[in-house]
């Protein structure tokens, strides 16, 4: 099984946003990402799928240097964002994370008002000069997060008092507020009911107009519904990376086929 060819990772797209080259990631002695090379397109939803522990979330976290916060994590290889090496010593990880936003599995609003949840990022990054600009930015982010109409009269209420689906959309609005170029989503719907999930999926499709979206999901159907490109990870390898339609109707690698059809691989 291990001598099977790895993915043809050079999915052709002239509008490449992120370019990962020979990425290796180690947690101590554990080799979690094995020589992954992939281009991720702009204004496209790219789904990462694979069984638990396959490295998909770890690879996602490489893209905004979240693994820097883990003591024994060590990365090799390069990741370019618009051609610039994000692991260059001159790059400030905090500034990088404003450009590469992240939404997590469990909605995690700050214990602050709805307004402050969204306003926090723009304020610390000095993106606004006065209150009226901040108001406009908060409204724009909540509108893009498809939650403005529900929350516009409750901006002073705590974000933690919202329903799960609303909290997650608030977190997406918070991530959007710093005007990122890339949005990373780590199983954003796994804690949500089907209606909230549908709302987030609809939102992801809208976000694609402006951002490069990368989503990690355990739901095969969700990957098929929301993404244009799909990457299948297994045991730290990028096994197959192709158009989503191709992956779900005619995958080329038997490991992908076994996984997506629910067979024992």
């Amino acid at each position: 099984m291990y001598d099977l060819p790895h993915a043809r990772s050079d999915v052709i797209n002239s509008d490449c946003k992120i370019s990962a080259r020979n990425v290796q990631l180690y947690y101590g002695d554990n080799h979690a990402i094995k020589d992954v090379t992939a281009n991720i397109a702009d204004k496209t939803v790219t789904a990462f799928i694979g069984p638990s522990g396959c490295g998909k979330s770890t690879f996602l976290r490489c893209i905004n240097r979240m693994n820097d916060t883990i003591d024994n994590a060590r990365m090799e290889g390069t990741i370019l964002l618009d051609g610039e090496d994000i692991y260059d010593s001159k790059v400030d990880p905090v500034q990088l994370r404003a450009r590469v936003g992240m939404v997590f599995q469990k909605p995690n609003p700050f214990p602050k008002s709805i307004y402050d949840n969204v306003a926090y990022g723009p304020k610390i990054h000095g993106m606004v000069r006065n209150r009226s600009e901040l108001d406009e930015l908060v409204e724009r982010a909540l509108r893009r997060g498809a939650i403005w109409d529900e929350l516009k009269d409750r901006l002073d209420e705590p974000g933690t008092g919202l329903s799960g689906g609303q909290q997650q959309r608030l977190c997406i609005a918070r991530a959007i507020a710093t005007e990122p170029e890339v949005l990373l989503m780590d199983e954003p719907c796994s804690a949500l009911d089907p209606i909230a999930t549908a709302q987030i999926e609809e939102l992801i499709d809208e976000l694609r107009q402006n951002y490069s979206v990368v989503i990690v999901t355990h739901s095969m159907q969700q990957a098929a519904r929301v993404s244009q490109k799909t990457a299948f990870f297994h045991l730290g390898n990028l096994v197959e990376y192709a158009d989503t339609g191709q992956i779900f109707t005619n995958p080329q690698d038997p490991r992908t086929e076994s996984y997506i059809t629910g067979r024992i691989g």
Partner: protein
Amino acid sequence: MSQHIVFSFDQDLQSVQAKVMRIGSLAETALNDAVLSLETRDVKLAERVRTRDTLIDNLTEDIKVSCAKLLALRAPTAVDLRVVLSVMTIGGNLERIGDYAKNIAKRASVISENPPVSVVHPLRTITDFVVHMISDSLDSYIQRSQSIAESVLIRDQRVDEMYTALFRNMLIEMQEKQHEMTVGMHLQFIAKNIERAGDQATNIAEQTIYLATGMKPNDDRPKRDMTSYETLRA
């Protein structure tokens, strides 16, 4: 391909494919018996062919319901999706073969009321050839064999040639023996039905190639049915 983690998914897929094989067997028999009823002027056999077509129709409907359930409940992907899609299409192809057989049986009953003519014998040759194609197309499906499927596709040209030759002969016969016009017209439609059954066998073979490879075969095979251009020479 190994088994699904959910065993009942395998059972559902096997069950729906078994139904296709059952229809396939019924359709082959129906076509064979319809032409036999014509050759032997056996009106009772023709009647049985017509009656048994309901069984084919019901099984086809049953396949559609099973496939709808599979799509809704299992959300199949990759090869499983191709199995469901190909089963739905092949069910339709076999139902059409059943319809052609039924039509032949109806015409056989009419023909049996008229005096015998000589052209029936060549219909046996094309019928055997087409029934063999149907049988091989179903074998290719169940064995997931691209090579058998391709051999069926190639044979369609021979069916076209046989049909074109029959068409010409019938035109000449009818010109000479105008009192056999009624029988001749019915035989003309019967020959066309058999030729179309051959087309359905090639459709099944194409579905097999799609199932086995995920790709549709090229549709650039030469066509040899020249009857659209045939005229009576004065």
